[in-house]
């Protein structure tokens, strides 16, 4: 039995702010570099 996971993001962290801004500016798309970074964080 695996644990059910909930991912919680820290809204005051600079990286999260940057990712949110990028999504807003690019029609909900992230660049490959940002995607990689988001994966790395997870």
């Amino acid at each position, binding site marked *: 039995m*695996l644990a*059910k*996971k*909930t*991912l919680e*993001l820290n809204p005051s962290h600079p990286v999260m702010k940057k990712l949110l801004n990028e999504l807003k500016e690019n029609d909900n798309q992230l660049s490959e570099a940002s995607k990689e970074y988001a994966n790395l*964080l*997870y």
Partner: protein
Amino acid sequence: MKDDQDTILYLSGDTKDSILRSPILKKYIKQGFEVLILDDPIDEFTTQHLSEYEKRKVKSISKEDVSVLDNDETAKKKLQKLKEMYKPLTDWYKNHLGKNVEKVSISNKLTDAPLFIFTSQYGYSAQMEKINKA
């Protein structure tokens, strides 16, 4: 323990050092909450069956349903606003990770860490999963 702390909080892990390094512990300590550090594997089994002790709920801070931090109305409104503001990012993460996570949301439990994976209220904790795999 704080007078208004109606929940006994704990965090389990392999060693005391690793538990003390957890990014979710910081804010509880900062706000004056006492958190039990449980580093013995048997603790995890015990707490699975101990939901209440002396009329106080017993909860792991690694589970998503613990909501003792920032419990006033202003903080709740602020969190709600942040959830709306960050919806594009939470939606993106949910789409991107698919079935790997059950839910993506905004946290009021983190200070320095960008994100954290909590376990659901009723499922296994991460530590229990680790024990079962061993």
